[in-house]
Protein backbone atom coordinates (compact mmCIF):
# COMPACT_ATOMS: atom_id res chain seq x y z
CA UNK A 1 0.00 0.00 0.00
CA UNK A 2 2.24 2.82 -1.19
CA UNK A 3 -0.84 5.01 -1.36
CA UNK A 4 -1.41 4.60 2.37
CA UNK A 5 2.20 5.52 3.11
CA UNK A 6 2.05 8.70 1.05
CA UNK A 7 -1.22 9.73 2.74
CA UNK A 8 0.44 9.19 6.08
CA UNK A 9 3.31 11.41 4.96
CA UNK A 10 0.88 14.14 3.92
CA UNK A 11 -0.98 13.90 7.22
CA UNK A 12 2.27 14.29 9.13
CA UNK A 13 3.10 17.44 7.19
CA UNK A 14 -0.39 18.76 7.96
CA UNK A 15 0.23 18.02 11.66
CA UNK A 16 3.25 20.26 11.50
CA UNK A 17 1.22 23.01 9.83
CA UNK A 18 -1.35 22.77 12.63
CA UNK A 19 1.34 23.10 15.29
CA UNK A 20 2.99 26.03 13.53
CA UNK A 21 -0.40 27.76 13.38
CA UNK A 22 -0.96 27.09 17.09
CA UNK A 23 2.46 28.52 17.95
CA UNK A 24 1.64 31.58 15.89
CA UNK A 25 -1.74 32.01 17.59
CA UNK A 26 -0.04 31.86 20.98
CA UNK A 27 2.62 34.39 20.19
CA UNK A 28 1.28 36.92 17.71
CA UNK A 29 0.19 40.40 18.66
CA UNK A 30 -1.60 41.17 15.46
CA UNK A 31 -5.32 40.39 15.51
CA UNK A 32 -5.80 40.57 11.75
CA UNK A 33 -3.36 37.77 11.09
CA UNK A 34 -4.67 35.88 14.11
CA UNK A 35 -8.00 35.42 12.35
CA UNK A 36 -6.47 34.30 9.08
CA UNK A 37 -4.11 31.90 10.82
CA UNK A 38 -7.06 30.45 12.72
CA UNK A 39 -8.92 29.82 9.50
CA UNK A 40 -5.77 28.30 8.02
CA UNK A 41 -5.57 25.97 11.00
CA UNK A 42 -9.18 24.93 10.54
CA UNK A 43 -8.61 24.41 6.84
CA UNK A 44 -5.70 22.14 7.69
CA UNK A 45 -7.94 20.16 10.03
CA UNK A 46 -10.45 19.78 7.24
CA UNK A 47 -7.65 18.60 4.95
CA UNK A 48 -6.57 16.03 7.54
CA UNK A 49 -10.16 14.81 7.81
CA UNK A 50 -10.30 14.50 4.03
CA UNK A 51 -7.02 12.60 3.91
CA UNK A 52 -8.28 10.24 6.61
CA UNK A 53 -11.49 9.80 4.66
CA UNK A 54 -9.51 8.82 1.57
CA UNK A 55 -7.53 6.36 3.64
CA UNK A 56 -10.40 4.96 5.74
CA UNK A 57 -13.50 5.56 3.69
CA UNK A 58 -15.63 6.43 6.73
CA UNK A 59 -18.27 8.85 5.53
CA UNK A 60 -18.40 10.68 8.86
CA UNK A 61 -14.90 12.08 8.23
CA UNK A 62 -16.04 13.61 4.96
CA UNK A 63 -18.98 15.17 6.77
CA UNK A 64 -16.68 16.58 9.44
CA UNK A 65 -14.49 18.08 6.74
CA UNK A 66 -17.45 19.77 5.07
CA UNK A 67 -18.88 21.08 8.33
CA UNK A 68 -15.47 22.37 9.39
CA UNK A 69 -14.90 24.20 6.13
CA UNK A 70 -18.35 25.75 6.18
CA UNK A 71 -18.29 26.89 9.78
CA UNK A 72 -14.71 27.40 10.87
CA UNK A 73 -13.05 28.39 7.63
CA UNK A 74 -15.79 30.62 6.27
CA UNK A 75 -18.49 31.72 8.71
CA UNK A 76 -16.69 32.23 12.03
CA UNK A 77 -13.59 33.97 10.64
CA UNK A 78 -15.88 36.18 8.59
CA UNK A 79 -17.82 37.20 11.71
CA UNK A 80 -14.69 37.81 13.73
CA UNK A 81 -13.05 39.77 10.95
CA UNK A 82 -16.17 41.94 10.72
CA UNK A 83 -16.25 42.56 14.48
CA UNK A 84 -12.56 43.27 14.44
CA UNK A 85 -12.91 45.76 11.63
CA UNK A 86 -15.75 47.55 13.34
CA UNK A 87 -14.24 47.90 16.78
CA UNK A 88 -10.93 48.90 15.22
CA UNK A 89 -8.64 46.97 17.50
CA UNK A 90 -5.65 45.84 15.48
CA UNK A 91 -3.29 44.63 18.14
CA UNK A 92 -3.41 42.82 21.41
CA UNK A 93 -0.23 43.57 23.25
CA UNK A 94 -1.27 42.98 26.82
CA UNK A 95 -0.90 39.63 28.47
CA UNK A 96 -1.82 38.17 31.84
CA UNK A 97 0.48 35.81 33.75
CA UNK A 98 2.40 34.53 30.74
CA UNK A 99 4.02 36.44 27.92
CA UNK A 100 4.25 34.79 24.49
CA UNK A 101 7.80 33.54 25.00
CA UNK A 102 6.98 31.82 28.25
CA UNK A 103 3.78 30.36 26.83
CA UNK A 104 5.77 28.81 23.98
CA UNK A 105 8.21 27.26 26.41
CA UNK A 106 5.40 26.10 28.69
CA UNK A 107 3.53 24.52 25.80
CA UNK A 108 6.66 22.65 24.84
CA UNK A 109 6.98 21.20 28.32
CA UNK A 110 3.27 20.40 28.23
CA UNK A 111 3.69 18.42 25.04
CA UNK A 112 6.34 16.29 26.65
CA UNK A 113 4.17 15.71 29.73
CA UNK A 114 1.21 14.77 27.54
CA UNK A 115 3.42 12.46 25.55
CA UNK A 116 4.50 10.59 28.64
CA UNK A 117 1.02 10.57 30.15
CA UNK A 118 -0.60 9.24 27.00
CA UNK A 119 2.04 6.63 26.43
CA UNK A 120 0.85 5.02 29.66
CA UNK A 121 -2.84 5.17 28.83
CA UNK A 122 -3.01 4.38 25.13
CA UNK A 123 -1.83 1.01 23.93
CA UNK A 124 1.53 1.59 22.29
CA UNK A 125 2.46 -1.91 21.32
CA UNK A 126 4.96 -1.87 18.44
CA UNK A 127 2.26 -2.83 15.95
CA UNK A 128 -0.18 0.01 16.60
CA UNK A 129 -0.13 2.89 14.13
CA UNK A 130 1.96 5.74 15.51
CA UNK A 131 -0.15 8.25 13.61
CA UNK A 132 -3.08 7.86 16.00
CA UNK A 133 -0.86 8.31 19.03
CA UNK A 134 0.86 11.31 17.54
CA UNK A 135 -2.50 12.81 16.62
CA UNK A 136 -3.79 12.32 20.16
CA UNK A 137 -0.76 14.06 21.65
CA UNK A 138 -1.10 17.00 19.28
CA UNK A 139 -4.86 17.20 19.83
CA UNK A 140 -4.53 17.50 23.60
CA UNK A 141 -1.62 19.94 23.36
CA UNK A 142 -3.65 22.06 20.97
CA UNK A 143 -6.48 22.10 23.50
CA UNK A 144 -4.18 23.19 26.31
CA UNK A 145 -2.43 25.74 24.10
CA UNK A 146 -5.84 27.21 23.28
CA UNK A 147 -6.56 27.34 26.98
CA UNK A 148 -3.34 29.22 27.55
CA UNK A 149 -4.32 31.75 24.89
CA UNK A 150 -7.68 32.16 26.61
CA UNK A 151 -6.26 32.97 29.99
CA UNK A 152 -3.15 34.88 28.95
CA UNK A 153 -4.81 37.37 26.63
CA UNK A 154 -6.64 40.43 27.83
CA UNK A 155 -8.94 41.37 24.97
CA UNK A 156 -12.26 39.59 24.67
CA UNK A 157 -11.76 39.01 20.97
CA UNK A 158 -8.46 37.19 21.41
CA UNK A 159 -9.87 35.19 24.32
CA UNK A 160 -12.50 33.94 21.93
CA UNK A 161 -9.82 33.04 19.39
CA UNK A 162 -8.16 30.97 22.10
CA UNK A 163 -11.43 29.21 22.81
CA UNK A 164 -11.92 28.51 19.12
CA UNK A 165 -8.47 27.01 18.72
CA UNK A 166 -9.15 24.93 21.83
CA UNK A 167 -12.16 23.50 20.07
CA UNK A 168 -9.94 22.70 17.10
CA UNK A 169 -7.91 20.61 19.52
CA UNK A 170 -11.02 18.73 20.61
CA UNK A 171 -11.92 18.03 17.00
CA UNK A 172 -8.36 16.90 16.32
CA UNK A 173 -8.37 14.54 19.27
CA UNK A 174 -11.79 13.27 18.25
CA UNK A 175 -10.63 12.53 14.73
CA UNK A 176 -7.76 10.39 15.88
CA UNK A 177 -8.79 8.68 19.07
CA UNK A 178 -12.46 8.58 19.91
CA UNK A 179 -14.60 9.12 16.85
CA UNK A 180 -16.98 11.89 18.01
CA UNK A 181 -20.54 11.36 16.80
CA UNK A 182 -21.35 13.88 14.12
CA UNK A 183 -24.31 15.26 16.06
CA UNK A 184 -22.03 16.34 18.91
CA UNK A 185 -19.64 17.94 16.49
CA UNK A 186 -22.59 19.82 15.03
CA UNK A 187 -23.75 21.00 18.43
CA UNK A 188 -20.27 22.21 19.29
CA UNK A 189 -20.12 24.20 16.09
CA UNK A 190 -23.50 25.80 16.74
CA UNK A 191 -22.20 26.68 20.20
CA UNK A 192 -19.16 28.26 18.63
CA UNK A 193 -21.22 30.39 16.29
CA UNK A 194 -23.35 31.59 19.19
CA UNK A 195 -20.18 32.28 21.14
CA UNK A 196 -18.84 34.41 18.33
CA UNK A 197 -22.10 36.33 18.24
CA UNK A 198 -21.81 36.84 21.97
CA UNK A 199 -18.33 38.19 21.43
CA UNK A 200 -19.86 41.25 19.87
CA UNK A 201 -21.54 41.84 23.21
CA UNK A 202 -18.37 41.16 25.18
CA UNK A 203 -16.26 43.27 22.89
CA UNK A 204 -18.64 46.20 22.81
CA UNK A 205 -19.53 46.16 26.47
CA UNK A 206 -21.56 43.94 28.69
CA UNK A 207 -21.70 46.44 31.53
CA UNK A 208 -24.54 48.51 30.16
CA UNK A 209 -28.29 48.75 30.04
CA UNK A 210 -30.03 47.65 26.92
CA UNK A 211 -30.55 51.16 25.55
CA UNK A 212 -27.03 52.18 26.22
CA UNK A 213 -25.87 49.01 24.57
CA UNK A 214 -27.96 49.76 21.55
CA UNK A 215 -26.34 53.17 21.37
CA UNK A 216 -22.90 51.64 21.56
CA UNK A 217 -23.74 49.29 18.75
CA UNK A 218 -24.58 52.36 16.75
CA UNK A 219 -21.36 54.03 17.70
CA UNK A 220 -19.30 51.09 16.53
CA UNK A 221 -21.45 50.75 13.39
CA UNK A 222 -22.41 47.23 14.33
CA UNK A 223 -26.11 47.89 13.96
CA UNK A 224 -27.75 49.98 11.37
CA UNK A 225 -31.44 50.79 11.65
CA UNK A 226 -33.11 51.89 8.50
CA UNK A 227 -35.78 53.81 10.41
CA UNK A 228 -33.21 55.76 12.37
CA UNK A 229 -32.78 58.22 9.55
CA UNK A 230 -36.08 59.87 10.27
Amino acid at each position, binding site marked *: MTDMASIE*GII*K*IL*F*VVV*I*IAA*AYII*STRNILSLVSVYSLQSLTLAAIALALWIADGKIVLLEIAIVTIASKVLIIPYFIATIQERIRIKRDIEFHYL*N*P*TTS*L*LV*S*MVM*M*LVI*YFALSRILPTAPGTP*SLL*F*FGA*VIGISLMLMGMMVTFSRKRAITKVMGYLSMENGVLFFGMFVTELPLIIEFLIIIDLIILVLLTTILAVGIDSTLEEYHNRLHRFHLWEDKEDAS
Partner: protein
Amino acid sequence: MSLDFVVYMMVNTLLVIAAAPFFVSFIKKVKAWTQGRRGPSVFQTYANLAKLLKKEVIYSPHSSRIMRVTPYVNIAAALVASLFVPLAFVPEPVGGIGNIILFLYLLALGKFFMALSGLDAGSSFGGMGSSREMSISAVIEPTTIIVFAALAFVFKTLNIFTIFSVTAGSSTPVTPTLILLGISLFIILIVETSRIPVDNPETHLELTMIHEGMILEQSGRNLALMELSSGIKLTLLIALLINLVLPFGLGTTLTVAGIAIAAVLFLLKGVLLGGIIGLFESSMSKMRFFRLPSLFAMAFFFSTLTIIIEVFT
Protein backbone atom coordinates in the same frame (compact mmCIF):
# COMPACT_ATOMS: atom_id res chain seq x y z
CA MET B 1 43.64 13.80 1.48
CA SER B 2 42.42 12.80 -1.94
CA LEU B 3 42.57 14.81 -5.13
CA ASP B 4 38.77 15.17 -4.96
CA PHE B 5 39.06 17.00 -1.72
CA VAL B 6 41.70 19.41 -2.97
CA VAL B 7 39.53 20.25 -5.96
CA TYR B 8 36.55 20.62 -3.66
CA MET B 9 38.42 23.05 -1.43
CA MET B 10 39.41 25.26 -4.33
CA VAL B 11 36.04 25.21 -6.08
CA ASN B 12 34.05 25.74 -2.92
CA THR B 13 36.15 28.62 -1.64
CA LEU B 14 36.12 30.39 -4.99
CA LEU B 15 32.38 29.91 -5.32
CA VAL B 16 31.74 31.27 -1.83
CA ILE B 17 33.91 34.33 -2.38
CA ALA B 18 32.35 34.99 -5.77
CA ALA B 19 28.76 34.50 -4.59
CA ALA B 20 28.92 36.35 -1.26
CA PRO B 21 28.86 39.97 -2.55
CA PHE B 22 26.18 39.01 -5.05
CA PHE B 23 23.79 37.74 -2.37
CA VAL B 24 24.42 40.79 -0.20
CA SER B 25 23.51 43.18 -2.98
CA PHE B 26 20.69 41.01 -4.30
CA ILE B 27 18.89 41.19 -0.93
CA LYS B 28 19.38 44.97 -0.99
CA LYS B 29 17.90 45.02 -4.49
CA VAL B 30 14.81 43.07 -3.42
CA LYS B 31 14.28 45.44 -0.52
CA ALA B 32 14.62 48.40 -2.88
CA TRP B 33 12.01 46.89 -5.22
CA THR B 34 9.52 46.42 -2.41
CA GLN B 35 10.01 50.06 -1.49
CA GLY B 36 9.42 51.14 -5.08
CA ARG B 37 13.03 52.17 -5.71
CA ARG B 38 15.31 50.85 -8.42
CA GLY B 39 18.13 50.25 -5.99
CA PRO B 40 21.83 49.79 -6.64
CA SER B 41 22.95 47.26 -9.22
CA VAL B 42 23.47 43.69 -8.05
CA PHE B 43 27.19 44.13 -8.71
CA GLN B 44 27.48 47.18 -6.47
CA THR B 45 29.02 45.26 -3.55
CA TYR B 46 31.86 44.01 -5.79
CA ALA B 47 32.63 47.60 -6.75
CA ASN B 48 32.47 48.72 -3.12
CA LEU B 49 34.84 46.00 -2.02
CA ALA B 50 37.25 46.76 -4.88
CA LYS B 51 37.23 50.43 -3.95
CA LEU B 52 37.75 49.77 -0.26
CA LEU B 53 40.64 47.41 -0.95
CA LYS B 54 42.50 50.25 -2.64
CA LYS B 55 42.01 52.73 0.18
CA GLU B 56 44.46 53.23 3.04
CA VAL B 57 43.73 51.99 6.54
CA ILE B 58 43.41 54.49 9.35
CA TYR B 59 43.63 53.38 12.96
CA SER B 60 42.42 55.31 15.94
CA PRO B 61 45.38 56.34 18.16
CA HIS B 62 43.66 54.56 21.07
CA SER B 63 43.39 51.27 19.30
CA SER B 64 45.61 48.30 20.07
CA ARG B 65 46.76 45.19 18.29
CA ILE B 66 43.25 43.70 18.39
CA MET B 67 42.06 46.25 15.86
CA ARG B 68 44.83 45.29 13.43
CA VAL B 69 44.34 41.57 13.82
CA THR B 70 40.55 41.36 13.77
CA PRO B 71 39.86 41.65 10.03
CA TYR B 72 42.32 38.86 9.26
CA VAL B 73 40.98 36.61 12.02
CA ASN B 74 37.48 37.26 10.79
CA ILE B 75 38.14 36.50 7.14
CA ALA B 76 40.21 33.45 8.08
CA ALA B 77 37.47 32.08 10.31
CA ALA B 78 34.86 32.72 7.61
CA LEU B 79 36.93 31.05 4.89
CA VAL B 80 37.71 28.02 7.01
CA ALA B 81 34.04 27.78 7.92
CA SER B 82 33.25 27.95 4.21
CA LEU B 83 35.05 24.63 3.77
CA PHE B 84 32.51 23.05 6.08
CA VAL B 85 29.47 23.79 3.94
CA PRO B 86 29.58 22.28 0.45
CA LEU B 87 27.85 24.57 -2.01
CA ALA B 88 27.82 22.59 -5.20
CA PHE B 89 29.41 19.23 -4.62
CA VAL B 90 29.80 16.98 -1.57
CA PRO B 91 33.05 15.05 -1.26
CA GLU B 92 33.89 12.40 1.30
CA PRO B 93 34.57 14.13 4.63
CA VAL B 94 38.23 14.39 5.60
CA GLY B 95 39.37 14.69 9.18
CA GLY B 96 37.31 17.05 11.30
CA ILE B 97 36.17 19.16 8.35
CA GLY B 98 32.41 19.31 8.21
CA ASN B 99 31.89 18.95 11.94
CA ILE B 100 28.82 20.96 12.82
CA ILE B 101 30.04 22.05 16.26
CA LEU B 102 33.40 23.20 14.95
CA PHE B 103 31.50 25.14 12.29
CA LEU B 104 29.47 26.98 14.93
CA TYR B 105 32.55 27.80 16.96
CA LEU B 106 34.41 29.11 13.94
CA LEU B 107 31.56 31.54 13.41
CA ALA B 108 31.65 32.39 17.12
CA LEU B 109 35.40 33.05 16.93
CA GLY B 110 34.91 35.66 14.24
CA LYS B 111 32.07 37.20 16.22
CA PHE B 112 34.18 37.33 19.38
CA PHE B 113 37.00 39.19 17.68
CA MET B 114 34.56 41.55 16.04
CA ALA B 115 33.07 42.42 19.43
CA LEU B 116 36.55 42.94 20.88
CA SER B 117 37.49 45.28 18.06
CA GLY B 118 34.31 47.22 18.66
CA LEU B 119 35.44 47.84 22.21
CA ASP B 120 39.06 48.34 21.27
CA ALA B 121 38.84 51.65 19.44
CA GLY B 122 37.19 53.28 22.43
CA SER B 123 34.30 54.80 20.51
CA SER B 124 31.03 54.65 22.36
CA PHE B 125 29.13 53.33 19.33
CA GLY B 126 31.45 50.37 19.01
CA GLY B 127 31.07 49.57 22.68
CA MET B 128 27.29 49.69 22.44
CA GLY B 129 27.35 47.48 19.37
CA SER B 130 29.60 44.94 21.07
CA SER B 131 27.52 44.92 24.20
CA ARG B 132 24.33 44.28 22.25
CA GLU B 133 25.95 41.67 20.06
CA MET B 134 27.19 39.78 23.09
CA SER B 135 23.80 39.95 24.84
CA ILE B 136 22.09 38.62 21.74
CA SER B 137 24.71 35.92 21.27
CA ALA B 138 24.26 34.80 24.85
CA VAL B 139 20.53 34.46 24.34
CA ILE B 140 20.64 32.90 20.86
CA GLU B 141 23.41 30.41 21.69
CA PRO B 142 21.17 27.79 23.38
CA THR B 143 18.72 28.09 20.50
CA THR B 144 21.46 27.65 17.90
CA ILE B 145 22.80 24.63 19.72
CA ILE B 146 19.32 23.08 19.96
CA VAL B 147 18.67 23.71 16.25
CA PHE B 148 21.92 22.08 15.23
CA ALA B 149 21.40 19.31 17.77
CA ALA B 150 18.02 18.63 16.16
CA LEU B 151 19.75 18.56 12.79
CA ALA B 152 22.32 16.12 14.09
CA PHE B 153 19.64 14.04 15.80
CA VAL B 154 17.46 13.78 12.70
CA PHE B 155 20.33 12.75 10.45
CA LYS B 156 22.17 10.78 13.13
CA THR B 157 25.47 12.45 12.33
CA LEU B 158 27.48 15.51 13.31
CA ASN B 159 29.03 15.93 9.90
CA ILE B 160 27.53 18.45 7.48
CA PHE B 161 28.91 16.53 4.47
CA THR B 162 27.11 13.37 5.52
CA ILE B 163 23.89 15.30 6.16
CA PHE B 164 24.03 16.82 2.69
CA SER B 165 24.72 13.54 0.97
CA VAL B 166 21.69 12.06 2.76
CA THR B 167 19.41 14.93 1.68
CA ALA B 168 20.80 14.88 -1.87
CA GLY B 169 20.12 11.17 -2.13
CA SER B 170 16.68 11.06 -0.52
CA SER B 171 13.59 10.61 -2.64
CA THR B 172 10.92 12.26 -0.46
CA PRO B 173 11.03 16.00 -1.13
CA VAL B 174 9.30 17.26 2.01
CA THR B 175 9.20 15.79 5.47
CA PRO B 176 7.69 17.39 8.57
CA THR B 177 11.03 17.58 10.29
CA LEU B 178 12.60 19.41 7.36
CA ILE B 179 9.87 22.06 7.44
CA LEU B 180 10.43 22.69 11.14
CA LEU B 181 14.21 22.69 10.78
CA GLY B 182 13.90 25.05 7.83
CA ILE B 183 11.95 27.56 9.91
CA SER B 184 14.40 27.36 12.80
CA LEU B 185 17.41 27.70 10.52
CA PHE B 186 15.80 30.67 8.81
CA ILE B 187 15.45 32.45 12.16
CA ILE B 188 19.06 31.62 13.00
CA LEU B 189 20.10 33.02 9.61
CA ILE B 190 18.23 36.27 10.27
CA VAL B 191 19.81 36.66 13.71
CA GLU B 192 23.33 35.63 12.79
CA THR B 193 23.55 37.93 9.79
CA SER B 194 22.06 40.91 11.67
CA ARG B 195 18.95 41.33 9.58
CA ILE B 196 15.83 43.30 10.24
CA PRO B 197 13.81 42.18 13.21
CA VAL B 198 17.12 42.04 15.09
CA ASP B 199 19.36 44.65 13.52
CA ASN B 200 19.21 46.98 10.56
CA PRO B 201 21.92 46.25 8.00
CA GLU B 202 21.12 49.35 5.96
CA THR B 203 22.40 52.04 8.22
CA HIS B 204 25.09 52.93 10.66
CA LEU B 205 23.33 56.09 11.71
CA GLU B 206 20.85 54.49 14.05
CA LEU B 207 21.47 54.22 17.75
CA THR B 208 20.17 50.68 17.66
CA MET B 209 22.80 49.35 15.28
CA ILE B 210 24.65 46.22 16.26
CA HIS B 211 26.79 44.83 13.49
CA GLU B 212 27.45 48.18 11.84
CA GLY B 213 28.31 49.67 15.23
CA MET B 214 31.09 47.19 15.77
CA ILE B 215 32.74 47.77 12.42
CA LEU B 216 32.30 51.54 12.53
CA GLU B 217 35.98 52.12 13.27
CA GLN B 218 37.25 49.87 10.51
CA SER B 219 38.45 51.48 7.33
CA GLY B 220 40.02 50.73 3.97
CA ARG B 221 40.92 47.16 3.18
CA ASN B 222 40.17 46.09 6.76
CA LEU B 223 36.59 47.22 6.27
CA ALA B 224 36.50 45.35 2.96
CA LEU B 225 37.61 42.18 4.73
CA MET B 226 34.99 42.61 7.45
CA GLU B 227 32.22 43.16 4.91
CA LEU B 228 33.38 40.23 2.84
CA SER B 229 33.44 37.95 5.87
CA SER B 230 29.92 38.91 6.87
CA GLY B 231 28.87 38.27 3.26
CA ILE B 232 30.52 34.86 3.42
CA LYS B 233 28.67 34.10 6.64
CA LEU B 234 25.40 34.97 4.93
CA THR B 235 26.24 32.77 1.95
CA LEU B 236 27.17 29.84 4.18
CA LEU B 237 23.93 29.98 6.14
CA ILE B 238 21.97 30.33 2.90
CA ALA B 239 23.82 27.30 1.54
CA LEU B 240 23.11 25.33 4.70
CA LEU B 241 19.41 26.07 4.45
CA ILE B 242 18.93 25.41 0.75
CA ASN B 243 21.04 22.28 0.63
CA LEU B 244 18.87 20.88 3.41
CA VAL B 245 15.47 21.91 2.14
CA LEU B 246 15.98 22.05 -1.65
CA PRO B 247 18.90 19.75 -2.27
CA PHE B 248 18.14 18.73 -5.85
CA GLY B 249 21.07 19.11 -8.22
CA LEU B 250 23.65 18.84 -5.45
CA GLY B 251 26.43 16.66 -6.86
CA THR B 252 28.10 13.85 -4.95
CA THR B 253 30.61 12.85 -7.61
CA LEU B 254 33.29 15.00 -9.15
CA THR B 255 32.63 15.98 -12.75
CA VAL B 256 33.15 19.36 -14.37
CA ALA B 257 29.68 19.50 -15.89
CA GLY B 258 28.09 18.34 -12.63
CA ILE B 259 29.82 21.06 -10.64
CA ALA B 260 28.92 23.73 -13.17
CA ILE B 261 25.24 22.74 -13.21
CA ALA B 262 25.16 22.48 -9.41
CA ALA B 263 26.80 25.89 -9.06
CA VAL B 264 24.26 27.53 -11.37
CA LEU B 265 21.40 25.77 -9.58
CA PHE B 266 22.84 26.90 -6.27
CA LEU B 267 22.86 30.49 -7.46
CA LEU B 268 19.26 30.21 -8.64
CA LYS B 269 18.11 28.69 -5.35
CA GLY B 270 20.11 31.31 -3.50
CA VAL B 271 18.35 34.02 -5.49
CA LEU B 272 15.01 32.48 -4.47
CA LEU B 273 15.97 32.39 -0.79
CA GLY B 274 17.50 35.86 -1.02
CA GLY B 275 14.17 37.07 -2.39
CA ILE B 276 12.37 35.49 0.56
CA ILE B 277 14.82 37.10 3.00
CA GLY B 278 14.34 40.47 1.32
CA LEU B 279 10.56 40.20 1.44
CA PHE B 280 10.65 39.03 5.04
CA GLU B 281 12.82 41.99 5.98
CA SER B 282 10.57 44.42 4.15
CA SER B 283 7.45 43.08 5.82
CA MET B 284 8.83 43.38 9.35
CA SER B 285 9.81 46.30 11.46
CA LYS B 286 12.76 46.20 13.76
CA MET B 287 11.86 44.60 17.06
CA ARG B 288 12.45 46.19 20.38
CA PHE B 289 15.61 44.77 21.88
CA PHE B 290 13.93 43.11 24.86
CA ARG B 291 11.32 41.48 22.69
CA LEU B 292 13.89 39.56 20.65
CA PRO B 293 13.80 36.48 22.90
CA SER B 294 10.30 35.74 21.60
CA LEU B 295 11.77 35.35 18.11
CA PHE B 296 14.43 33.03 19.48
CA ALA B 297 11.84 31.09 21.47
CA MET B 298 10.08 30.39 18.17
CA ALA B 299 13.22 28.74 16.77
CA PHE B 300 13.76 26.93 20.05
CA PHE B 301 10.17 25.66 20.04
CA PHE B 302 10.33 24.38 16.49
CA SER B 303 13.64 22.64 16.88
CA THR B 304 12.60 20.97 20.11
CA LEU B 305 9.43 19.92 18.34
CA THR B 306 11.61 18.38 15.63
CA ILE B 307 13.34 16.26 18.23
CA ILE B 308 10.02 15.30 19.84
CA ILE B 309 8.55 14.30 16.47
CA GLU B 310 11.60 12.22 15.68
CA VAL B 311 11.15 10.42 18.99
CA PHE B 312 7.39 9.96 18.45
CA THR B 313 7.39 8.43 15.02
